[in-house]
């Protein structure tokens, strides 16, 4: 009986304490974790999709947290769908940012993202600091 009783006790605990509650994430974290719906909810609540936000370690980088814009997070997470959603909901990319993003895409290659960023030529990335470089921000 023991396994079933353990499951029942866990069930009681999960009911009271809640199993895997929704995490509080920043807009960039939502994008980095493929959580487009949460990203859209945050934008609807007034979060600026052009502001940089903290992304905890382990999501875009292995062992340190970074502060990146949602668009940068979408490129880093190789999520063309997220990038498209952000652009359709107020995110903008200026010329300088575009170059950074295209260089970032060279490291985190994704054909869908590349297509959305336009231009098929390889960018000149000399001297460009990527958003997830430790000293980038």
């Amino acid at each position, binding site marked *: 009986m023991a396994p*079933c009783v353990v499951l029942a006790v866990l069930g009681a605990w999960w009911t009271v304490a809640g199993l895997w509650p929704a995490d509080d994430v920043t807009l960039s974290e939502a994008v980095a974790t493929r959580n487009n719906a949460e990203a859209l909810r945050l934008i609807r609540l007034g979060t600026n999709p052009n502001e940089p936000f903290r992304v905890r370690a382990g999501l875009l980088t292995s062992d340190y947290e970074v502060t990146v814009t949602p668009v940068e997070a979408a490129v880093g997470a190789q999520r063309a769908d997220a990038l498209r959603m952000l652009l359709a909901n107020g995110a903008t990319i200026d010329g300088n940012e575009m170059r950074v993003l295209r260089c970032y895409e060279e490291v985190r290659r994704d054909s869908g993202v590349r297509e959305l960023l336009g231009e098929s030529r390889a960018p000149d990335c000399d001297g460009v600091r990527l958003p997830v470089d430790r000293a980038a921000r």
Partner: protein
Amino acid sequence: MRRAGLAMLSTAMKPRAVAWLLSVLITLPLADSVFRIPIQVSDSLEAIVISTEYPTTSRLLADSIRFSPTTFRPMRFLQTRWLLAAAMSAGLTYNAMFRGVHVLLLVLLVVLFVLAVRVRGQTDLVAFAVALPILIGIHTFVAMLQEAFPVNHYAEVGVCVLAVLVLAQRPPRWFFAPLICLLLALALSVIESGAMVWVMVICCAAAGLRGITRTTVATTTALLAGYFVLRHALDIASPGIGGHGSGFGATFYSSEELAQRFGAHPLGLIAYNVAGGLASLLLSEPRQGVYSLAIAWRDGVVHPILAINLVSSLVTTALLVWYGIRHLRAGRASWSDRDRVFVAASGVMAVNAVLTAAYIKDEIISPGGLCYAVAAFIACAALLETLPRRALAASVAIAALLTLDAALWTFRAAGVQYVLRYAAFKTRNDWVEVLREDKRTDWPQDPRELAVTQRIRDEAIVRRVASPSFMPRWADRWWVE
């Protein structure tokens, strides 16, 4: 004398109460996880939109019987319409209404299972503690919870099938026949698998369960015959090979590929599918027609979930075979009530596999999965009863094997939570692709359709769910296939 009777009643009540308690504690968080899954885009939205388009229910009914050349599912649209209206009048969100109904179906499945197995003493309680995780952990059960259309028809059929099994074990009453006819009519009007209700009636009657009388057999058979006549009159054909994608060996084929490969000579595939449907129930392999074992052999990698599913199912199925050989060979006349339930459940499993002739899908064999858990309870209780008569070493070995089996099934049952949370995350994200800001030209032109779509989308986006990125990383390998 009276005191002895009360003591016996108390002895029986305690294990039964513990069984109910276990069921409640395990079902509560499951219900929470089911409720968190938003209404789906695929399969659900279309039915909801259609249901709102009609000015009257009778017009919807009249048209719904001709929506598809291969399906007859009028209740799919009618119940959707009624639930939308109920949500409006009760001031509930659509999500709360549809997900609430799904939770209700889950609760009914568990309640009917507890009623069907009838825990009577300590030994039964131990067997129940093995069988309940089997009920929840078997892959056909989660298939009834993950998706909805927007009400899960397979869960509705499962409820009806178990309800018949519960009634069949009771002394016959005048209202059983009309009630079972009603259950059959409801099941047949939501999905073709509803025929499993009739199969359960026939299997219970053949096994000699007293609650099913000749009247019930005759009326349900007449009802089923009427259903086929109606389908014929409406020119509704059965889906053949190529109506749906399905696997063969280590590969999943799309419906077109299947038709191209097997359409001219379908008998081999039909035999493969029926055998695969039964094997899926008994061994948890194949899934959707694809043998993960074949993939593991080809790639040289065995995922933990495959080993857990196979071992747990193998041990349980061996238990069922042992029970069948040990208890049924004496002949029908000498069968106990439990033997008869076992025979009925086994019969339903075997016939259910036939329904996978055109393609294999976990949902199709879900009534068989419910019966598998019922049969496992009976076999487990019988094996436990033999322990005092066995040598100590044999008893210890059997107890260890059952504990291992129970542990593996419990692990599978715990994984259902993860699978459901994953489904909630995926379903919520699917809504981002609906009514996209950058594709306003694709939005529905009809204001009513747009309003309904917008409302359900907004409800889904607002409902926060856990992201798999913040759930245990190991869970994918151990719980997701």
